[in-house]
C-alpha cells in the first residue's frame, strides 16, 4: 500500500515489530519478578528497565547483584554484553545521516536487537531511507513501552508468576530473525558467515556474560569478509585512499 503519511509509517513500524514485542513479554515479566524475588526495591528494578533498556544485560546485572558482585564488575559486564549495539548503530548510520542530534539521541537510546532486526530488514527491502526514521521510532517506542509495562507487571505479580519462559514465546523472535537473515543470504560468503556464526554460537554459549555472542559474531564477520574477497574478484584499485 503506497500510504506514506508519518502516522501510517509509524504504525507500520509498530506492526512489523509486533511478533518480537510478544516474544519479549515473558522476559520483561520474568525480569520484574526475578528482581522482586531477589529483594531489590521496586523503583530499582523499574529504573533499570527505563534507563538501561537492554534485556540480556539486565538479567545478568541483577543476577550478579544478588551474588554480591562489585559495582565496577557489574558495570564492565553490562558494557561488554551491550557492545554489540555499537555494530548495530554503525550499520544503521545511513538512516540517521539527515537527522539532527535531537533525533539521534533518543533513537540511539532505544536501539535493541529487535528494532535493529526490523529496521535493517526494512532498509534492505526499500531503496530509500526517507521514511525509515519514523518507522524506526514506531518500532522502538512500542518495544520500549512494552518492556517497561512488562517489567512493572512482573514486579506486581512477583513470585506468583508461573515459569513463563517455558511457554516458549521466544519462538516468535527466533522465526522472525530467521525470516530476516535468510533473504540476506545472497552470496556464498553470506552462507559461510551464517554457518560460522551458528557453529561458534553453539560452542561458546557457556562463555561468561555473553562474550561468546560477541566473539562468535566478530569471527563470523571476518570469515564472511575474507571469503567474499577470495571468492569475488574485485578490482584492487577500489576503496578509499590511505594517503
Amino acid at each position, binding site marked *: 500500500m503506497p500510504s506514506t503519511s508519518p502516522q501510517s509509517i509509524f504504525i507500520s513500524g509498530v506492526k512489523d515489530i509486533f*511478533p518480537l514485542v510478544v516474544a519479549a513479554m515473558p522476559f520483561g515479566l520474568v525480569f520484574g519478578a526475578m528482581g522482586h524475588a531477589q529483594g*531489590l526495591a521496586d523503583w530499582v528494578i523499574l*529504573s*533499570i528497565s527505563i*534507563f*538501561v533498556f*537492554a534485556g540480556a*544485560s539486565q538479567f545478568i546485572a541483577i543476577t550478579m547483584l544478588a551474588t554480591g558482585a562489585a*559495582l565496577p564488575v557489574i*558495570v*564492565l559486564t*553490562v558494557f561488554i554484553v*551491550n557492545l554489540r*549495539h*555499537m*555494530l*548495530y*548503530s554503525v*550499520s544503521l*548510520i545511513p538512516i*540517521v*545521516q539527515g537527522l539532527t542530534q535531537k533525533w*539521534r*539521541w533518543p*533513537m540511539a*537510546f532505544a*536501539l535493541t*536487537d529487535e528494532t535493529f532486526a526490523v529496521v*535493517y*530488514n526494512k532498509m534492505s527491502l526499500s531503496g530509500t531511507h526517507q521514511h525509515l526514521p519514523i518507522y524506526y521510532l514506531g518500532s522502538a517506542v512500542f518495544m520500549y513501552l512494552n518492556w517497561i509495562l512488562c517489567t512493572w507487571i512482573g514486579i506486581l505479580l512477583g513470585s506468583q508468576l508461573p515459569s513463563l519462559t517455558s511457554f*516458549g514465546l*521466544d*519462538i516468535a*523472535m*527466533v*522465526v*522472525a*530473525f*530467521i*525470516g*530476516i*537473515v535468510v*533473504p*540476506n*543470504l545472497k552470496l556464498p560468503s553470506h552462507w559461510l*558467515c551464517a554457518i560460522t*556464526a551458528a557453529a*561458534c*554460537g*553453539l560452542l561458546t*554459549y557457556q562463555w561468561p556474560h555473553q562474550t561468546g*555472542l560477541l566473539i*562468535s*559474531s*566478530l569471527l*563470523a564477520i571476518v570469515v564472511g*569478509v575474507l571469503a*567474499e574477497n577470495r571468492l569475488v574478484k574485485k578490482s584492487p584499485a577500489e*576503496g*578509499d585512499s590511505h594517503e
Partner: protein
Amino acid sequence: MNEMLLIAAMAAVTFIPRLLPFALASRLRLPKPMQQALSYVPIAILSVIIVQSIFYRNGALALHLTNPFLWASLVAFITALIQKRLFVTILMGLLSYSILKFWLLH
C-alpha cells in the same frame, strides 16, 4: 544511593556504544572495508542468537529431536528460502511450533 550510582553507570555504558556511531554519523565517512564488514553484522549476530535460542532452552543444551524449536525453525527456514515475506515466515514458524508443542506434549 548505591543503587542509583549502579543504574546511572549501567545506563551510561549501555547508551554510549549505541550513541557514538549515530552522533558522529555526519563527520564519519566509513571506509569501504568497514562498509563491507558491516554488511555481515546482521547475518552474524542474528545467526548466533537464533542458534543459541534454539539449542539452549532454559540454559541447558537441548540437542534432541523432541525440541520443538528445532522443527519450527526448520519450517521457518524453508519458508524463508521459498519466499521473502517476513510475515509469512513468522506465521509458518509459529503455526508449526503450536502444532508440535501440542503434539509432543501428548
